[in-house]
């Protein structure tokens, strides 16, 4: 089976005063038709850069090498004129700030119609009908009314639904969602996540879902790739990563996920900060923050298969498999009186 999107050995460098600094290094990722893949990591780990590389929207001083194949077509050496046929028509993207992504001086309808007309030759009435259909499809009540409204009439959650409709307006088969729910309330976040899941199931589109929240990703995605300092450090089916995480970074991220069974217990985050591009530590990039680091970690780490369909970039992966298990067995704690 060939993947709908196959990123292989992607390397993105930024030109910093004549010096090429790698922000993404040897990153590989595959998304099948109809599959939702989550990309998880902290700020600065290269998640957004990967998304921008797929769309070839990298900053001017960035250079990408490796290979990005979308539906059999190599994107990295496409000329700009052909890339326009990829963006929007084949790949739709949704960003973090839905309110900022919409133009406040145009109606929702004008912006959605622009997205429809950019890639399709439809009559006015057909385009309008398509717009109503798209808004209905993303669960916006009263789509006819919404078309006439301006973004400030809509809540953040509604704006994000409009953005998703725009991203899919031209029939894109790959949706890239970059932290699409970060600025939204939990209740709305939950609805957006379930909307994306429904769209993927119903119309078989592929989704690359980028987030720093492993809990959120685990609600939605079939597979998860955990990235750290521009590299994938662990990848596998969601269930495998949640139940048998091997990389210490994945284990640490899992500890940060809310656990409503343990009220009043403050969990440690991950001490320290991710390394800056250009000043990476020797060997394993997570080593300075890793509680299990040994001398063996000073050698560069390779992403290796450690179990069935489970790749880990850690020399101690197998011996740490049972250490610090992320999900404690569901406790049935009695209510405690007072905490003081």
């Amino acid at each position, binding site marked *: 089976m060939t993947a709908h999107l196959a990123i292989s050995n992607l390397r993105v460098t930024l030109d910093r005063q004549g010096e090429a600094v790698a922000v993404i290094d040897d990153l590989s990722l595959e998304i099948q038709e109809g599959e939702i893949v989550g990309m998880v990591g*902290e*700020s600065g780990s290269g998640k957004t850069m990967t998304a921008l590389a797929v769309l070839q929207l990298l900053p001017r001083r960035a250079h990408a090498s490796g290979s990005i194949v979308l539906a059999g077509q190599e994107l990295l050496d496409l000329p700009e004129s052909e890339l326009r046929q990829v963006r929007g028509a084949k790949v739709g993207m949704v960003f973090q700030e839905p309110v900022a992504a919409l133009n406040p001086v145009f109606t929702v309808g004008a912006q959605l119609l622009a997205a429809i007309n950019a890639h399709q030759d439809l009559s006015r009435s057909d385009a309008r009908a398509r717009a109503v259909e798209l808004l209905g499809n993303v669960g916006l*009540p009263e789509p006819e009314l919404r078309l006439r409204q301006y973004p400030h009439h809509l*809540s*953040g*959650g*509604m704006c994000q639904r409009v953005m998703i409709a725009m991203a899919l307006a031209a029939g894109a088969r790959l949706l890239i969602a970059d932290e699409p729910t970060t600025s939204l*309330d*939990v*209740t*709305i*976040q*939950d609805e957006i*996540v379930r909307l994306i899941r429904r769209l993927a199931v119903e119309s078989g589109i592929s989704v690359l879902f980028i987030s*720093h*929240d*492993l*809990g*959120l990703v*685990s*609600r939605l995605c079939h597979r998860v790739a955990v990235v750290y300092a521009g590299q994938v450090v662990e990848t596998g089916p969601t269930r495998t990563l*949640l139940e048998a995480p091997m990389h210490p970074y994945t284990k*640490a*991220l*899992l*500890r*940060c*996920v*809310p*656990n*409503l*069974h*343990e*009220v*009043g*217990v*403050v*969990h*440690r*985050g*991950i*001490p320290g*900060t991710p390394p800056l591009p250009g000043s990476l530590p020797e060997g394993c990039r997570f080593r300075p923050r890793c509680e299990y680091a040994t001398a063996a970690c000073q050698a560069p780490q390779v992403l290796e298969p450690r179990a069935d369909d489970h790749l880990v970039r850690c020399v101690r992966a197998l011996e740490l498999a049972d250490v610090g298990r*992320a*999900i*404690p067995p*569901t406790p049935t*704690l009695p*209510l*405690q009186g*007072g*905490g*003081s």
Partner: protein
Amino acid sequence: MTAPVGTARADLDGRAPADCLLRISDLTVTYGLRSRQPVHAVVDVSLEVHTGRTLALIGESGSGKSSIARAICGLAPVERGTITMDGYELTTAPDRPVAAGQRGIQIVFQDPVSALDPRWSVWRSVAEPLLRHVPSSDDRRERAMVLLERVGLDRSFGDRHPHQLSGGQRQRVTIARALAPAPRLVILDEAVSALDVSVRNEILVLLDELKREEGLTYLLISHDMGAVAQMATDIAVMYLGKVVESGEAARVIREPAHPYTDALLASVPTVSGDIVDPSFRPRGEIGDTAHPPPGCRYHTRCPLAIDRCAAEEPLMRPVRERLTACHRADEKVNA
């Protein structure tokens, strides 16, 4: 005036209100009071924050939780009701923000980028609250440096500027500044919501440490249930300007009595298995504060709503060792 209801302790445990640090009684916050369409962001809310505890105010955007925080600090218009800090009435003070500061209240906001002056070195920002009290600049600088160490930043950070700091480091700086006047109550208004999960937990660990070591009391305002479950000792759930459930954190989280509390908990992305029935998910989005629905304000989204909910507003009453405002709370039995 009715007796203050709020963190269920005083009402349910029969404990004397002596350890009550902040008391909010029948507070109504109204924006545009003299306009044609005044908006009641908070309506008749009563709450108590007890010394040494952490009261979490939770609810969606538009529930009025931030308006309560701003009203305490004198930054939002109070139409009626009282806010007393340690017996001192804050709402009638001539300069409400100054009075709140003098009575030992400090606030940490969500966005540490806009909360710090980009032109000021970190130590000057931290020492700003001391300007009136510590005349010597050298003394202020020294105090700021000690505070920075207190929040886990070494002294070299004092001479840096905000743009040289990461988001987590900036939030540590704003916490250090809040600690400068030695407050007793710190309001954390979405103080960790903008941070990455890994950084967020590090800040929570710091806040927990500071609370114990400095004897602080927190009012935690958050839509982030992960942070709330870790930090809160008491919870008050707000919906469209009203408190709908309040009580001890463990009780409210483990056996919510109000369907809205269920809905909030059901939306939390956990990996430890769903704690509540997903059928409690709310319908649609939070209503308009300017035009709240009649009866129970949540009935338009509530999966348990009956005719009575649209006609009659439920009052806060004790149900299973906490207070809740729901007509059907007794029927709803959690496993």
